[in-house]
C-alpha cells in the first residue's frame, strides 16, 4: 500500500515536471539559489524548469523508490544525481506549517533528505522554516482578545479563561466544537472514531491562531480541576488513551512512514531539544518554536499529553511505553525522555503559563524571510517582556523559570551584547549568517 502510494506520488510529480518544463527561461539557475530560503513546492518548480535538475531529480526518486540506501549509493548514477541536486534549490528548501500543499511540500523535502541521510538517525532536522516570532507577541494578543486585566483575577482558573476566550471567538469556537463533537465517545458505542478525532484536532491546532490554542494547552493551574481541564483539552479518552500502550520506538517507526507525522516529530526534536548551552535549555532560547512544534504533534498517533492532573509536576508523554524494546531499550528511554524529562519543554510550558518569555539576543536578530516583525527587534529586550506578564507568579510551583528570569534581569542583561547564540539560530535564513554558518550546515548534513 505505502509503496504503491509513494509510486503514485512519483507519477503525479512527473506530471508536474512535464507541465513545468515549458517556460525554462523563468529560472535561469542562480548559482547560489539554494541559499535563499524557498519552499520545496517552489523549489520543485524551479528544478522542473531546468532540464538537468529535473532529470537528476527523477533519477534520484527512482533510486529511492528501491528504498535501500546502500544499494542506492552503490549505483553511480544515483550518487551523481544526489551530488548534482545538492547544488539545486531543492537542497535546503523548507515547508511551512499549514501552507497550501503542505503534504506535497513535505514529500518533496523528504525525497531529497532521505537520500542524504538514509532515514535511520535518531534525530532528524526539521523540514519547517524556523519560527521567529516570540511568545510575548502572543501574550499581547491574548490579553487584548480576552479583554481581562490578568493581574486582577489571580484566583481564576486560567484554563477556564482560555476556554472562554475560545468560545467568544467564532473561528476558535467552531473548530473546537468540531473536534470535540468528533472525539467525544457517543453514549451508545464503545469506541470513538479516532481517525476523525485526530483529523479535526489537527485542523484545530493548524487553523486557530496560537494565542487561543496555546492558552488552552499550556494554561497554568493551581488546583486539580484546572489541571484536569488542561489534560482534557485534546479529549484524551479518544485521541490519546488506548487499551494497551504500544512500544515508543514502534510508534516512532509508524510515524516516520507518514511524511506529515515524520515532519512534525522532526520539528519537535529540532525546536525542543534540551540544550545545555542556553539559559532556557531551549535551542536559540525560543520557547514559541518549542511550544509550536509540540502542538504540531497533536492529532497524530504520537500525540503527547499531560499524564495526570497534577498541578505541580508538568509531565507530558506520548501514549507509549518502553516495554518490549529488547536491545533498543536505551534508545527508547532516550526517545521517551525527550517528552517526560525535557527541561526545554517544561520551561517553555511554565513560561507560557506565567506569561514570561526571554527576549531574543539583541545582536544578530533573526531576519524572518517573509513577514518581518520589526516590533520584536526594535523593542528593548527585557522591560517590554516583563510588562507582558499575564499572570501573577505562582511562586510555589515555579522553580527553574523564575530563577532564570531573575538571573537574566540582574546579571545577564548588561552582558547580552556579547552573548553569542551557540547554535546560530538565525543562520538558516539570514543571508549574511548563512556564509558564516556554512560549516554548521555541512556538519549537520554529514551527521
Amino acid at each position, binding site marked *: 500500500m505505502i509503496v504503491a502510494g509513494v509510486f503514485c506520488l512519483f507519477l503525479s510529480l512527473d506530471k508536474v515536471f512535464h507541465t513545468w518544463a515549458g517556460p525554462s527561461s523563468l529560472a535561469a539557475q542562480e548559482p547560489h539559489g539554494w541559499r535563499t530560503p524557498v519552499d520545496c513546492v517552489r523549489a520543485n518548480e524551479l528544478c522542473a524548469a531546468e532540464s538537468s535538475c529535473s532529470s537528476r531529480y527523477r533519477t534520484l526518486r527512482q533510486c529511492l523508490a528501491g528504498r535501500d540506501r546502500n544499494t542506492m549509493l552503490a549505483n553511480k548514477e544515483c550518487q551523481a544525481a544526489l551530488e548534482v541536486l545538492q547544488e539545486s534549490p531543492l537542497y535546503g528548501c523548507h515547508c511551512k506549517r499549514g501552507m497550501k500543499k503542505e503534504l506535497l511540500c513535505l514529500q518533496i523535502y523528504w525525497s531529497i533528505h532521505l537520500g542524504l541521510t538514509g532515514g535511520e538517525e535518531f534525530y532528524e532536522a526539521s523540514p519547517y522554516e524556523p519560527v521567529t516570532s516570540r511568545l510575548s507577541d502572543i501574550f499581547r494578543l491574548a490579553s487584548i482578545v480576552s479583554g481581562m486585566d490578568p493581574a486582577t483575577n489571580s484566583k481564576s482558573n486560567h484554563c477556564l479563561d482560555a*476556554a472562554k476566550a475560545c*468560545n467568544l471567538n467564532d473561528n476558535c469556537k467552531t473548530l473546537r*466544537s468540531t473536534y470535540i463533537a468528533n472525539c467525544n465517545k457517543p453514549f451508545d458505542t464503545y469506541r470513538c472514531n479516532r481517525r476523525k478525532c485526530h483529523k479535526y484536532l489537527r485542523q484545530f491546532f493548524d487553523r486557530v491562531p496560537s494565542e487561543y490554542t496555546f492558552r488552552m494547552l499550556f494554561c497554568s493551574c493551581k488546583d486539580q480541576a484546572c489541571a484536569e481541564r488542561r489534560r482534557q483539552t485534546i479529549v484524551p479518552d479518544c485521541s490519546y488513551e488506548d487499551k494497551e500502550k504500544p512500544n515508543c520506538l514502534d510508534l516512532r517507526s509508524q510515524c516516520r512512514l507518514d511524511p506529515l507525522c515524520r515532519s512534525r516529530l522532526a520539528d519537535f526534536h529540532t525546536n525542543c531539544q534540551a540544550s545545555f548551552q542556553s539559559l532556557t535549555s531551549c535551542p536559540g532560547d525560543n520557547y514559541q518554536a518549542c511550544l509550536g512544534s509540540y502542538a504540531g504533534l497533536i492529532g497524530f498517533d504520537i500525540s503527547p499529553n499531560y499524564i495526570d492532573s497534577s498541578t505541580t509536576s508538568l509531565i507530558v508523554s506520548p501514549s507509549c511505553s518502553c516495554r518490549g524494546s529488547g536491545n533498543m531499550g536505551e534508545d527508547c528511554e532516550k526517545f521517551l525522555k525527550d517528552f517526560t524529562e525535557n527541561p526545554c519543554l517544561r520551561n517553555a510550558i511554565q513560561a507560557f503559563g506565567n506569561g514570561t518569555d526571554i527576549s531574543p539576543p539583541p545582536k544578530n536578530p533573526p531576519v524572518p524571510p517573509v513577514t518581518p516583525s520589526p516590533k520584536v527587534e526594535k523593542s528593548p529586550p527585557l522591560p517590554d517582556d516583563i510588562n507582558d506578564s499575564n499572570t501573577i507568579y505562582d511562586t510555589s510551583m515555579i522553580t527553574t523559570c523564575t530563577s532564570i528570569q531573575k538571573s537574566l534581569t540582574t546579571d545577564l542583561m548588561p552582558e547580552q551584547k556579547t552573548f553569542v547564540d551557540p547554535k546560530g539560530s538565525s543562520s538558516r535564513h539570514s543571508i549574511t549568517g548563512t556564509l558564516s554558518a556554512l560549516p554548521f550546515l555541512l556538519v549537520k548534513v554529514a551527521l
Partner: protein
Amino acid sequence: NRMKRAKAHHKPCSLKELEVTVSELGLGYTSDETVLFRYCSGTCDSSVRNYDLSLRNVRKMRKIKKEKVRARPCCRPLAYDDDISFLDAGNRYHTVNEVSAKECGCV
C-alpha cells in the same frame, strides 16, 4: 426613564448577544464555561400584514373564540448558530445544537 424604556422597546427585531455560563442556559448541564448566547430581540411593527389586521378584527367580532391565535408578527431566529461544545463539571464533554441564534426576522 419611561421614555428610554419606550425607545428601547421600539427597536426593530435584531440579533443581540450576551456572555453567559453554560449552567445559566438552564439546559441541565453544570459547567462554568462561558459561551456567547445570541438571541433575537425587538419589535416587528413594520412587518404587520393585512393578515394580522384581519385576524384581529375577526377575533374582535368574536368569530374566533376558543382557539389560540397570534395577530402580530414575532421576532424569532431564522437560523441557529453552530453547535456549542463544552466540558462540564464532571469532566465530560457535551455538544448541544440550536442554542444560539444566528439570524433574526419577523415571522
